[in-house]
């Protein structure tokens, strides 16, 4: 374990150095992320307060759901950025070099590219959500929110493993990630606002609701015992299913490039 932590530390340091090498680029990327976050924050606050999107939630609760979405996305961007660089690795045959290394390939292709630029936006988001929840909600609610948030991050990791597996099988990664991002956009709002069959899809097929809405619901005390347990079961099953898919994909890997 210590060995892996040390490798992760080294990879992260290298990634940070690589990212901050071009200072103008790093500044512009961070600026772009802030612009996007600010735009959605203002737009969604405007929408939920002016329309019928609340569905029983207060404006503050709707903002917490939005912030949960933003936090899950930022943490996912921070930890799993390397997945976006996976396709060239498969197409060029460079994945062979990853697979023969004496460490788990996820260290390199999933976790190997810590994106420090997401950390700046994440810091702002943590401050905003802390302001929204501390003092307003009970500590047990906040603790449940944190656990469900960690579970959401695990589901996100599983999604990225799914993209990697499809990448190995078909050399397609980017479009899978883009589809995931597009569908997860719906998690900016409480899933109750959506009509069937879309709500069914984002609850059971692609568990956006479990990732984005459930942590906030746990915080608000809106979950039954079953509602608390179900997200963790979904998380474990989703991760196990995608780990199996990764092994299946590796068995069929033919080294496309080279």
């Amino acid at each position, binding site marked *: 374990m210590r060995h892996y932590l040390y490798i992760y530390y080294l990879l992260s340091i290298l990634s940070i150095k690589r990212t901050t090498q071009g200072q103008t680029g790093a500044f512009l990327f961070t600026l772009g992320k802030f*612009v996007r976050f600010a735009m959605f924050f203002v*737009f969604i606050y405007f929408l939920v307060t*002016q329309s019928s999107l609340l569905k029983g939630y207060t404006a503050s609760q709707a903002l917490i759901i939005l912030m949960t979405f933003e936090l899950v996305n930022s943490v996912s961007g921070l930890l799993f950025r390397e997945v976006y660089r996976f396709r060239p690795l498969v197409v060029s045959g460079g994945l062979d070099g990853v697979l023969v290394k004496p460490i788990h390939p996820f260290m390199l292709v999933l976790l190997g590219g810590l994106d420090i630029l997401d950390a700046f936006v994440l810091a702002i988001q943590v401050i905003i959500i802390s302001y929204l929840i501390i003092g307003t909600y009970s500590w047990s609610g906040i603790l449940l929110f944190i656990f469900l948030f960690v579970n959401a991050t695990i589901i996100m990791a599983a999604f990225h493993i799914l993209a990697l597996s499809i990448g190995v099988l078909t050399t*397609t990664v980017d479009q899978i990630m883009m*589809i995931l991002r597009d569908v997860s956009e719906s998690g900016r709002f409480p899933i109750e*606002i959506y009509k069937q069959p879309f709500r069914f899809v984002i609850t059971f097929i692609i568990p956006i609701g479990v990732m984005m809405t459930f942590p906030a619901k746990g915080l608000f005390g809106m979950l039954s015992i079953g509602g608390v347990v179900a997200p963790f079961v979904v998380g474990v099953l989703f991760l196990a299913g995608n780990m199996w898919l990764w092994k299946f994909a590796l068995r069929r890997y033919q080294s496309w490039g080279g």
Partner: protein
Amino acid sequence: METYRNIFSTTVAEYAVYRFNFLLWRFRNVITLLIKYYLWTAVYGSHSMLFGYSQTHMLTYIMLSTVISSFVLATRTADVAGEILQGKIIDYVLRPLDFFTYQITRDVADKLINISLQVIEIAIVIALVKPVLFVQTNPQALLLTFVFLVLGTIIAFFVNLLIAFLGFWTHEVWAPRFVFTMLVLVFSGSYFPLDIIPRNVYVLFFLTPFPYLYFIPTRAYLGMPPQDIAFTLLGAVGWSFLSFYLARKVWQKGLREFSFFGR
């Protein structure tokens, strides 16, 4: 002419190389349209009118602007930055073809593929969710939509080239493109029609090229207030000429200052 016909068919053929990737790209467009449809249906709920738009007009705006945006912004010019950095741009300069016509030919092929498939995708979405959409029958509004669509496409093409030409002077070409994409997201009306924001802020947006990309063509389809037609037309024509002029100038300056080792 034969050369450009070959470039056209090669660009089309390139899409067939990674077919699954291509299919997913198109599937993604259907998903995007469906998500926006479900979101805005939820926003309206029991309201018949919000932000000065009826539900029918808003859904038409959201769907049509998504289609127009994928047409206007579809471009192969993003590759140019990488080609400058890798020195491949020399190949184009040495060949007996005009670089701008070459890029236009590739973009035309790209856009034709986009629009052909968009028709099918829209048909799928309409068949799936049966949205009530506004159908414009006024020939003047349709003509205006077409004119703005052409102008928006011209602006997008030359602005995209300008961003790619940054590669002549810096290695950091992806960050400006990312910022451009974010600005397009905010100022082009991706998520909502720009005219729902206060009028004095709304008018300021027209000093930038962004609203002309797909907000204005979509607004023209829905019926533009007569007092807005003249200045938006002037703005779109102005930005078309300015972006063309700047792209030419920057290209010439870039070529004069360009140097590369190893090829």
